[in-house]
Each structure stands twice: as C-alpha cells, then as structure tokens.
C-alpha cells in the first residue's frame, strides 16, 4: 500500500517535470496544441468514471459540465479580468454546486432515466448561455489572452502545464476514492443498490458525493478552454461530442481502475489528433463509434479487463 503510494506520487512528479521540460525544450507549438486536448480528455474521462464507472451511473451530461466550466472562466475573465487559477478554482466550485443540484434532482432515478435527465441538462444550460448576451450569445465570444508569464514562451505551453496539473489532481482524487471506503460503497451500489442499502451503505449520499466530485473536476477541466481557443460559442462548448467521446474513452479503457480512463483517453485522443491531421476531423466520430462497438463486443471490461483476463489465464497455466 505504502510502496504503491510512493510509486504513484513519484510517477506523477516525473510526469509534471517531463511536461515542464518539454515546454522549455520543444519549440514547435503544434505538439502542445494537440497535447492540450489529450490532457483535457484525460481529466474529463477520469472525472466521468468516478460516477459513471465506480457507481455505474452513466452521465451523458459531460458537455454540460464542460461548457459550464468554459463559460465560468469567460464570465470571470470578462467581468473581473480574473487570473487563470481563479477561473479554474471558481469553475470547480460551480461544477461542484451543479453536480449537487443535478444529483439532488436526478440521482433518485435509476439506470437509463438518470442518463436521459443528464442529456436534458445539457440542452437546458446550452439554451441559457445561448440567450445570455454578456457571454456573447449564439454568435460566440472572442477572448484576448493576457501576456504569458515566465518560464513559458507561449500561452498554450502554459495551458498544457496547467492541464497536466489538473490530470494529476483528477487521477489522485480518483485513486483515493477507489482505494477508500467511498470506492467500496460505490462499487457495492453499482452491483446491487438494495443489497448495498441493506448492508449499511448510504447509497444516495455516496452517489451525491461522486456526482459533486465528478462535476467539479469536469468544470475545472473546461475552464482554460476559452483561453486555449481564444474563442468560445455555446454550440461547441456544449457539444454532445464531449459527452460521447469521454464516455467512449472511459469504457474503452475500462472503468474498474483509475488507469482505465487514462489509457482510453490517451489512445482515443492520440488517434483523433492523428486523424484530424491526416484525414479530417469529421472522420473522428466514425472511428470513435467503430472502436466503441468493437470494444463493447470484444472487451466489455475495456483494456484493463483484457489485461486482467490475460493475467488470470497466465496464472492458471
């Protein structure tokens, strides 16, 4: 247990140092543009998996949380010129509150009804933002980035490092939950909600905790996005593609361990970036769909499921 923790934090520190070193050594901007998107998807799918994986409540509202994060950042920047750290922290708080509200309204519903309610949420919030003139409305809004701070040479490099910190944060939270009594409770209620209740698990409260944490992380991941694109509009910030991609990444990676969504997001994120450069960004959705179907049929427990099965088979022979 203790040794695992040292290895985990060592790897996390090494990862951050590597990202920081890359921002200093690599002059070409493109890898950072691509890397930012992949890191952002890692945060989103790890966050999604806290409720969708551990608790088994499939959330189609990732784009709602992401978009709220984007617009929280814009609102604070436009109204008060808030620095990036404040934008992210505020987005996390708004996300936690939104997660709480959504949980309160929807977590008494089970299975498919919860998923439908989360789709509705995306539409309601997108409509609200579309009609909010201060935030640019349907036409979108341009953002002028503040000057970059040392030691970074470009703002995108800074954003990549910030998103890398969010990755470490999200993974650390997911890992803590997985190994603690919260994780065991969520796993129990995913397997059988009534049996969990009758074993003393406060199922509603645990689902709320998962929804709040998941929502906070998703919103935090969205907050720097407007700075990254220097532009935002409701149709792309609340694009349902986020919900579908994130769900696919988590399921393809496997949701029973925090490393699953990380692997899934890297695999799919890299594939999407390569396709966007070589063929077109439209073909992404097709590839995503095909991969999801292949995995649902061939490896319902995702990539980590395959690994575990392999290890079990080895153990037997």
């Amino acid at each position, binding site marked *: 247990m203790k040794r695992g923790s040292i290895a985990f934090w060592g790897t996390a520190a090494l990862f951050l140092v590597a990202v920081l070193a890359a921002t200093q050594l690599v002059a070409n901007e493109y890898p950072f543009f691509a890397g930012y998107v992949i890191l952002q998807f890692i945060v989103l799918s790890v966050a999604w998996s806290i409720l969708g994986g551990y608790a088994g409540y499939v959330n189609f509202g990732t784009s709602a949380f992401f978009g709220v994060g984007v617009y929280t950042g814009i609102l604070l920047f436009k109204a008060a010129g808030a620095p990036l750290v404040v934008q992210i922290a505020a987005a996390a708080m708004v996300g936690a509150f939104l997660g709480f509200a959504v949980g309160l309204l929807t977590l008494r519903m089970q299975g498919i009804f919860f998923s439908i309610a989360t789709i509705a949420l995306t539409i309601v919030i997108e409509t609200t933002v579309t009609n909010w003139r201060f935030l640019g409305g349907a036409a979108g809004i341009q953002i002028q980035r503040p000057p970059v701070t040392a030691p970074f040479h470009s703002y995108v490099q800074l954003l990549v490092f910030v998103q890398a910190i969010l990755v470490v944060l999200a993974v650390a939270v997911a890992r803590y939950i997985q190994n603690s009594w919260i994780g065991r*409770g969520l796993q129990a209620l*995913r397997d*059988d909600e*009534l*049996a*969990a209740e*009758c*074993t003393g*698990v406060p199922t509603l409260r645990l689902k709320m905790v998962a929804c709040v944490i998941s929502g906070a992380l998703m919103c935090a991941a969205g907050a720097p996005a407007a700075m990254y694109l220097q532009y935002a509009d409701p149709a792309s910030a609340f694009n349902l593609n986020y919900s579908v991609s994130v769900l696919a990444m988590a399921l393809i990676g496997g949701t029973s361990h925090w490393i699953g969504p990380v692997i899934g997001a890297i695999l799919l994120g890299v594939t999407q970036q390569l396709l966007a450069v070589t063929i077109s960004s439209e073909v992404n959705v097709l590839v995503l769909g095909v991969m999801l179907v292949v995995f649902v049929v061939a490896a319902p427990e995702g990539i980590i499921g395959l690994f575990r099965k392999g290890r079990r088979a080895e153990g037997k022979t």
Partner: protein
Amino acid sequence: MTSAPAAELPLLRIGGLTKRFGGFTALDNVSVDIKAGERFGLIGPNGSGKTTLINCISGAFRTEPSTVIFGGEDITRLPPHVRTRRGIARSFQIPRTFRSMTVIENLMVAADFTSATHLRLSTDDHRDSSMAILQQMGLAAKADARVTGLSQVELRKMELARAMATRPKLLISDEAMAGLSGSEVDEVLDLLIKLAGESITIIMIEHIMQAVMRFSERIMCLDAGKIIAVGQPSDVMANARVQEAYLGT
C-alpha cells in the same frame, strides 16, 4: 404474553401494519411482537406477504408511522441503511451479492459502513473482523474467491455472513435454504441456531417445514396478508386454517 413486565420491551413491534400496492392489499393489519433473543419462524403459502413484511421491516418499503418499532423507537421514516446500522440485517430470497467483489470484500462493505469508528479503523482491521465471521460461517477457505464462482450453499452462507458483518441485533433470513440439498439445509440450519445462541434475534422465513419446526420457538403463519396463526410450533401446525392454507382443503 399476559403479564409481561414493563422492562421486557419487545425488540421488534409490528403494530397494525397494512401495505397496499394499488388495489392489492399485500399485508392487512398485521401486529406481532418479537422478543429479544427469540427464534421466530415465519411461514405461509407463496404470495402470502412474508417477503413484503420483511421489506417493510428492513426499509425497502415505506409504511405508515409507528407501524414498525425497533428497540422502542419508531423506525418507519428511516432509510434501509440507517435501519441496518441500528441493528436490522437481512438476507435475500434470491441472493443479491456484490458480484464484482471477492467474498471477503463483500463482508468488508458491511464492516466499512456499519461500524461507528469506520474512519479510524484501517482496512486491515476490517479484513480481520470479516475473516473472523467467515471462519465462523465455514467460508474462510473462500475468502478471496470471486462471488460468481460460489456454489448455491456458499452463496447462501455468504449472504448470512455479510448480514452478520453488520453486527445485527435482528437477523432476518429470507428462505436461506431454498434450493439446497438435505445435508446443506442442516448445515445452514446449524449455523442459524449457533447465531441465535449468540443472543441474536432471528426471524426465519422458510418453506422447508422440518427446518422451521426444528428452529423456531414461535411460528407465525400468514395467508393473503393476514395472520392466521401465531404461537408454539406444534399448535400452529395443528391449526385447521394453517393446514387448509397449505394443503388447500
């Protein structure tokens, strides 16, 4: 029953409990007291309301105020997990396990969420206490086995073990012997009698008559949601209405 001293409050009091589903009355004005330490058998034909009664006691179904009183307190407004923490544990007619976990992890869920000190105790402490219960139930060898690989009798024992891991005052066993062979029935029955010897009150729902007769100090028979007999096992068996409900004539 006539002159029970005031100090001897029943552990569980069901008072005028009626449960309707739409126009169907599943339980009709059921009242019964169960004393601490009692071995109580609950019988009745299929659909007579036995499991509905268990669901009302454990909290899966909500009922009218003060129809279920446990340890002198009205628990009708409490959700199931709070009732479990107060000391009501149950098994399910069709085993409902946490199938993605090992046997001992199933028990550790109970230990995690029902001990008042769960934040201070380490995972290892919970593992030890869960292991002790598995030993008692004769499942220690299966501790690290996946639940999906268990046999029927092992599943039944695991459900009872998980219920025991919540440290109950009242254990409700809902047909824990259904589908077991003769020797397995005796095995589970011996376990339940052993648990009752540790001053745990047990309500046993069962269709296997010799098991109910051997186990129970008192038996209650339900038919179509009504109590048709309650008392000594031999008296209940001799009751004409009970025989009619079971034999149909």
